[in-house]
C-alpha cells in the first residue's frame, strides 16, 4: 500500500463516496407538496333559499354576496351557499316611478325553516344590506 499511491487514491475516493451517500440523501432538495387550500365543505357552509317580493313590481332586483350577484331561478328564488356564521347580502332594486314609495320583502329559508323575514323600503330605488343570521 505504501508504494502504490494510485491505489491509495482510488481507495480514498471510494471511501469518500460511500461516506457521502447518507449525507447527500439527507441534504438533497426534495420537492415539498404545496398545501392545498381546503375548499369549503358542506360542514363549513349551508344552503339558504331567498324569496324576494317587490311592491310595486320592480324594474330590476338583484342580490349580491361579497360583490357577486346571486342568480335567480326560473321561479324567482335565489339559492346561495353561505358560511355558517352570519352573512351580509346587498339588495339592489329599481322601480319605474323614481319618486314613489317602494318595498321589497326578503324571506330567507334554511332546511325549510324561515330564518329571516325583512322588508326594505325606498323611493323608487333600494340599496340596502340584510344580515342572514347564523343557523
Amino acid at each position, binding site marked *: 500500500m505504501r508504494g502504490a499511491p494510485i491505489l491509495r487514491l482510488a481507495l480514498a475516493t471510494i471511501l469518500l463516496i460511500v461516506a457521502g451517500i447518507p449525507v447527500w440523501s439527507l441534504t438533497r432538495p426534495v420537492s415539498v407538496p404545496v398545501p392545498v387550500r381546503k375548499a369549503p365543505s358542506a360542514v363549513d357552509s349551508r344552503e339558504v333559499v331567498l324569496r324576494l317580493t317587490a311592491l310595486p313590481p320592480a324594474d330590476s332586483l338583484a342580490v349580491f354576496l361579497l360583490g357577486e350577484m346571486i342568480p335567480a331561478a326560473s321561479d324567482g328564488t335565489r339559492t346561495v351557499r353561505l358560511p355558517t356564521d352570519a352573512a*351580509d347580502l346587498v339588495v339592489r332594486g329599481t322601480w319605474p316611478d323614481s319618486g314613489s314609495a317602494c318595498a321589497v320583502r326578503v324571506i330567507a329559508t334554511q332546511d325549510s325553516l324561515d330564518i329571516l323575514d325583512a322588508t326594505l323600503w325606498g323611493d323608487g330605488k333600494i340599496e*340596502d344590506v340584510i344580515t342572514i343570521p347564523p343557523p
Partner: protein
Amino acid sequence: MKALVSLALLILSGLPSVVGAEKLTVASLNTVLTDIAKNVGGDKIEITAIVKPGVDPHGYEPSPDDIRKISNSQIVLASGLGFETYLNKLRQSVGSMPTFVVAGEAVKPLMGFEEGDHDHGAADHEHKDPSKTPDPHWFHSIRNVKVVTNQIRDAFSKADPANEATYFSNAAAYQAQLDQLSKWVKLELAKLPKSARVLITSHDALGYFARDNGFRVLPVAGFSTSDQPSSKRVAALIQEIRDTKAKAIFAENIENPKILVEITKETGTKLGGAIYADGLGDREANTFDSMMRYNVSTIVKALQ
C-alpha cells in the same frame, strides 16, 4: 341738523348688538363634539374648540388660557367616561357658570378591561385597574353620535330657548345625514365576510365600531394611548393574530406605529394604513362623516 346727527349716532350705537346678536357660547373638549355642535348650532352659537384635531386627547391638559375660555362659555361639551382625566378638577376650577354636557352620560358605555388584566397565570402580573373600565371612544358608533346629537340639541334649546326651533331643525337635518352615513357604512362593510372582520389596532379605541358592525378587536394596548403593553401581552397578541389569520394591522394618525411594524414582521401581516381613533383629523377626516368614511374605506381596502 343736531337732531339728525344725534339720531344717526343713536342708530349706530345700537348696531353692534343687532348685527352680532348674542350667540350661545360653547367650549368643546372633543373634536367630534365640536363637529356635532356646529351642525346643531349653526350660526346661533360661537364655539371654541379647546382640543384641536390631530391632538392626542389622552395626553391633553388644559392650559390657564383654556380654563379662562371655558369659564367664559355658557356650555362646555365633554366626552366623559374617563376620556378627559382632568374633567373633575376642571369642573371645580371653572365654578358654576358653564353648564357641562357630558356625552358619556347619554350613551350606554361599553365596559372592558384595561391592559394588565389579562395574564393571571404569573405571580408577578400587574394590574393597572382591576375593575371594569368604560370605553371612552363612544364616537365610533353612529348610533351613539345620534344620541349625543339629541343631547346637544336639548342642551342648546334649554340655554337659548329663543332659537329652539333652529336647533331642532338643524339636528333633524344632521340625523338624516347620519342615517345616510350609516347605510353607506353597511354597504361598504358588506364587501367583507364576517370571518375577515378582525381589527388589530395600537390601542383599544374601536370597541363601539366593532360592536355595531360585527368586528373583533385585538388591541395592542388598552383604552389610552399612554398605556404600554407588556411583553407578555404582545406575545399573546402575536399568537392571536396567527390563530385568527388576520390580514392587516392598523396604525393611528397620532401615533408612532413602531410596535405595530414589529408585530407585522413577526406575524407576516401587512400594515393596513392609519385610521383616526381618538377623534377628527385636520385633512381628510375633519368632520365626523368624513372620519367615518375614511376609516371604513381604509379597513375595507386592507381586509378585502
